[in-house]
């Protein structure tokens, strides 16, 4: 008894962000359990800011998981649950930032870079392959082997 209290006390103060969250919830079926795990893993804990809501042991994470569970039971969709959280805790809680003008750089930057790079590669390869066609290539020798 005292030992358990000691653990709880310690948890509250020092280790809240270190210890892991285990919170059994009465899911209707396995599909709902998986849906809950997936959704809570995409959300960020506002308190222990480098943990997902799924992992965090912060008191607020417990409460928010419970709330997500209830919203699910009430038939809310994932998007509605996310909107509920964003309304109260801002977009910070979304690990997947929404695609909007402010995040175009984030979402499309890599694609633009890839296309630009592909163009450079394509130009290089064409130039070199024309050179290759002009100069007769030597037959396979030991160097070419590897």
């Amino acid at each position, binding site marked *: 008894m005292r030992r358990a209290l000691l653990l709880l006390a310690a948890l*509250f*103060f020092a280790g809240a962000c270190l210890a892991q969250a285990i919170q059994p919830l009465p899911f209707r079926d396995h599909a709902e359990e998986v849906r809950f795990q997936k959704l809570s893993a995409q959300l960020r804990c*506002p*308190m222990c*800011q480098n943990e997902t809501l799924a992992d965090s042991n*912060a*008191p*607020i994470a417990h*409460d*928010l998981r419970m*709330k997500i569970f209830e919203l699910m039971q009430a038939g809310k969709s994932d998007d509605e649950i996310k909107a509920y959280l*964003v*309304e*109260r*805790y*801002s977009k*910070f809680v979304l690990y997947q930032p929404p695609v909007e003008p402010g995040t175009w750089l984030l979402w499309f930057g890599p694609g633009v870079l890839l296309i630009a790079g592909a163009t450079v590669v394509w130009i290089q390869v064409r130039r070199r392959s024309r050179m290759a066609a002009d100069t007769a290539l030597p037959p396979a020798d030991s160097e070419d082997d590897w």
Partner: protein
Amino acid sequence: MTRLLPLFAFLLLAALFGFGIWYNTKHDQQEIVSPLIDRAAPDFDLPVLGDNSRRVTKASLLGKPYLLNVFGSWCIECVHEHPVLMNEARALGVTLVGYNYKDDPADASAWIAKHGNPFDVIVADRDGRGALDFGVYGAPETFLVDAHGFIRYKHVGPLTPDDLAREIRPAIDALRRENR
């Protein structure tokens, strides 16, 4: 020209890092700016700490601006903040509402008895469910709610005399000017 591209890209990055260092000396990284600012405070209906027969609602507090301070007897930072509430905050001239968050009522009452009671009224949110609507994620947190029930300002973390002088007092003064 293309040879200079990597250097330019890096200088841009270095500027961003310089900004980051500067920005972090000015801002608390842990603080999430509340999306509720300048919006209506959520409805609530909570019992008074130590007296479950009395209830305080959002409607019952309308008409006068108030500071809502989220605290708990388990919260270490709240102890550091408490003298500021006891001394400076009472002089602000607004109602002080204590929001006892996720706490055992007996512990909370004992804590208040020990450290003093700066609040005009204390409401108890034992399971912390109402606090979700306020976007509370820890304690202490402080909200300034205006006479019409709109959240005008939020402070995360313990209040210091400096915070009061530089942030909260001007915000309250602004409210007074609006009402005139």
